[in-house]
C-alpha cells in the first residue's frame, strides 16, 4: 500500500504491534481487577472488548486475534468460576463462546473499517499528488510562449495555454469547448482523413497549417500533433503545438521569387553569351574571307598589272594591302580579347618570377638591336590562370618595349609593390614616353589609343585585354605616368585560391 506508506512514514514494527496487543489486554485486565476489588462487577467484559478494538485499530488483525486469545484466557482465568483456573464450567461455556464470537466479530469489523479508511486515505493522497503535478504542468505550459492546446477526439478544445491566447487572440475561457478547426479555420496541406490516419498510426503528425486569428489575419504555423491514449490504448486527446512561421514563409517566398528571377536572368545571360559567341564565330569565319580576297586580288593585280599602273596606282595598291593586313590583326586581337571572357580559367599556383622571365625572353625579340636595361626583382607566387597571366604580362612588357623606343637608354622594371596576406600588387615600370594622367581612364578601353598610329603601332586592345584578365582574377589594374617621364602599370591579384 504505497499511498499509505507515503502518508504514514512511522510503520510500527511487528514487536510494537504485538506488544500493543499484550499491553492493551494487560491494562484492561489490570483495570478490571482493580475495579473488581472496589466491588464493581461485570466491567471486565467491555474492558477486554475495548482493548481488542484498540489493538485491531492501531495494530491490525494479527495482534487483534492475539488480543482476543489473551483476553479470552485472562477472562477465563480471573473472572469466570472457578477463578484462577483455565477450566470453563459447562454453565459458563455459552457466555464464554459469545464473548469470543463477539470479540472476533468486532475484530473483523474494525479490520474492514480500518482497511477502507486506509484505502480512502491512499486515494486522497494520490489524488492530491496528481492534482499537484497537473497544476504544476499546467502552469509550466502556461509559462511557455509556444502555442499549445489540447483537443479531444471530436476536435473540441479542452486546454488552451497562454501562448495560444497570445497567438490567436482568444482566451482559454473563449476557446475551450469550441471545435479547433472551426475556431481557427484551419487549412490543411492534405486531406484531414489522411492526416488523422497518419496520426493514429504513428501517434504524431507534423506539418504546416494555415490558421486564422481572432482579428481575421491569416498565419502560417508549423504544427506538431501528439496523440494521447488512455490505459486501454484508446486515443483520447490530441496535443497540438503551433509555431508562427508566417514571417519565415514570407522570407522564403521572397527568396524563391528572387531565385526564380535570378534563374531567368542567368538564362537570359546565357542566351546573350551564346549570341556573342555566335557573333565572334561569324567574325572569325566571315570577315576573314573578304579580307583574303582583298589581299589576294590586290596582289594578283600587283603581279599582273604593275607595268600598266603608274607610281600612284602602285601606292594605292600597297595601301589597300596594308589596311587589309591591319584589319586582319584587329580581328585576331578582338577575337583573343573576347575569348578571355569565354574561356574557362584553369587556376593553379603560378611561379611569377619564372613567368616574367619567360615572357621577357619572348618579347625581347621585339627589342632587337636595342640595349634595354631590365630590372627584375624577386617575385612571390600567386594563384591564377597561368596562360592568361602570361598574356597580360606579354601585353604589359611589349608595351614597355614599344613606348621606350625613342629612349637611348631604355629601362624596364618588373617588381612587387605590395604583398599582403590575400593579395599581391605587381608593377611594370618604364622610362618611355609616358602619358598624360588626365587620359588615365581611357588607357584600358577597347580601341582606345593615346598615340597616333605613325608614332606607335597598335590596335588599342592590349591594355583592355590586361584589364579583362586581371578582373577575371578578382584584381584591379591602374596606371601612373607623366608625359615623357615614363609610365608604371600596377595590377593586383589574389595570392591565394579565392
Amino acid at each position, binding site marked *: 500500500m504505497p499511498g499509505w506508506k507515503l502518508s504514514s512514514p512511522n510503520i510500527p514494527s511487528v514487536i510494537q504491534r504485538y506488544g500493543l496487543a499484550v499491553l492493551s489486554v494487560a491494562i484492561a485486565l489490570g483495570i478490571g481487577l482493580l475495579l473488581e476489588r472496589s466491588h464493581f462487577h461485570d466491567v471486565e467484559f467491555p474492558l477486554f472488548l475495548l482493548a481488542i478494538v484498540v489493538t485491531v485499530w492501531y495494530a491490525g488483525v494479527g495482534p487483534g486475534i492475539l488480543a482476543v486469545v489473551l483476553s479470552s484466557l485472562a477472562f477465563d482465568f480471573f473472572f469466570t468460576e472457578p477463578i484462577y483456573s483455565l477450566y470453563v464450567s459447562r454453565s459458563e461455556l455459552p457466555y464464554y463462546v459469545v464473548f469470543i464470537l463477539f470479540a472476533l466479530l468486532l475484530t473483523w469489523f474494525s479490520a474492514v473499517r480500518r482497511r477502507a479508511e486506509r484505502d480512502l486515505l491512499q486515494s486522497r493522497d494520490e489524488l492530491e499528488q496528481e492534482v499537484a503535478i497537473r497544476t504544476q504542468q499546467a502552469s509550466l505550459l502556461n509559462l511557455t510562449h509556444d502555442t499549445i492546446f489540447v483537443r479531444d477526439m471530436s476536435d473540441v478544445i479542452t486546454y488552451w495555454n497562454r501562448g495560444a491566447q497570445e497567438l490567436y487572440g482568444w482566451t482559454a475561457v473563449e476557446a475551450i469547448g469550441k471545435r479547433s478547426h472551426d475556431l481557427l479555420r484551419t487549412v490543411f496541406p492534405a486531406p484531414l482523413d489522411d492526416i488523422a490516419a497518419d496520426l493514429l498510426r504513428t501517434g504524431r503528425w507534423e506539418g504546416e497549417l494555415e490558421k486564422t486569428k481572432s482579428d481575421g489575419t491569416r498565419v502560417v504555423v508549423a504544427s506538431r500533433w501528439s496523440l494521447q491514449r488512455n490505459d486501454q490504448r484508446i486515443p483520447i486527446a490530441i496535443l497540438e503545438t503551433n509555431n508562427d512561421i508566417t514571417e519565415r514563409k514570407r522570407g522564403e517566398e521572397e527568396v524563391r521569387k528572387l531565385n526564380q528571377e535570378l534563374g531567368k536572368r542567368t538564362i537570359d545571360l546565357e542566351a546573350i553569351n551564346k549570341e556573342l559567341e555566335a557573333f565572334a564565330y561569324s567574325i*572569325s569565319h566571315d570577315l576573314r*574571307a573578304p579580307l*583574303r580576297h582583298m*589581299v*589576294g*586580288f590586290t596582289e594578283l593585280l600587283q603581279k599582273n598589272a604593275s607595268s600598266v599602273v603608274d607610281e600612284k596606282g602602285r601606292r594605292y595598291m600597297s595601301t589597300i594591302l596594308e589596311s587589309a593586313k591591319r584589319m586582319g590583326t584587329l580581328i585576331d586581337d578582338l577575337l583573343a580579347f573576347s575569348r578571355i571572357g569565354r574561356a574557362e580559367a584553369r587556376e593553379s599556383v603560378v611561379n611569377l618570377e619564372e613567368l616574367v622571365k619567360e615572357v621577357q625572353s619572348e618579347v625581347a625579340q621585339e627589342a632587337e638591336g636595342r640595349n634595354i636595361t631590365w630590372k627584375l626583382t624577386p617575385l612571390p607566387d600567386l594563384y591564377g590562370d597561368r596562360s592568361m597571366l602570361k598574356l597580360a604580362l606579354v601585353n604589359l612588357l611589349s608595351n614597355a618595349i614599344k613606348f621606350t623606343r625613342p629612349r637611348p637608354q631604355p629601362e624596364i622594371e618588373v617588381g612587387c609593390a605590395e604583398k599582403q596576406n590575400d593579395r599581391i600588387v605587381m608593377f611594370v615600370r618604364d622610362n618611355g614616353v609616358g602619358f598624360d594622367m588626365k587620359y588615365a581612364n581611357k588607357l584600358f578601353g577597347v580601341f582606345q589609343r593615346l598615340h597616333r598610329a605613325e608614332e606607335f603601332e597598335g590596335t588599342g586592345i592590349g591594355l583592355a585585354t590586361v584589364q579583362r584578365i586581371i578582373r577575371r582574377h578578382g584584381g584591379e589594374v591602374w596606371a601612373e605616368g607623366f608625359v615623357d617621364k615614363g609610365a608604371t602599370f600596377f595590377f593586383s591579384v589574389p595570392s591565394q585560391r579565392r
Partner: protein
Amino acid sequence: MELLGRILMVEDDPKDVELALNALGEYNLTNEVIVTSDGEEALDYLYHRGKFQTRTNGNPAVRLLDLKLPKVDGLEVLQQVKSDEKLRMIPVVVLTSSREERDMVASYKLGVNAYVVKPVDFHEFVNAIKELGVFWAIINEAPPGSIKRK
C-alpha cells in the same frame, strides 16, 4: 611523269576557288581539280548522283573541304563520308577560315586527316594551297581505287 591524284574541292566561295585554282595552276594541277560548291553537290559527286551520274569511276585522291557550306555543311559531309565503308579511306582535309577550337575538335573527332586554317595573308594562302595540292595529289600515296593520271 608521276601519277597525279584528283582533288575534290568543296568550296562555296568562287573567289577562294579562283585564288586556289590560280595557285594550283603553277604546278599544272588545275585540270585535276573538281569543284563542288556545296555539301550536297560534293556528296552527289562521291555517290555518282545528280549531275555526276555519268562521271568516270574512281575516287578523288583527296577532298579539300570547307566547313561553312550551303545546304549540307562541311561537318555533315565529313560525318557522312567517314561513316561510309567505301568512302572513309579517301583523305579529307578541312580547309576553313575558322580558327575556332570547337570546329577543330569536331573535325578531328569525325576523323579528318588534316585541318588547315586558310591564311589571311594571300602569300601564305597561296603557299598553303600549293603545298596541300603537291602533298595530297603527288607525294602522298592515295588509297586504292583513286583516279590517277600520268
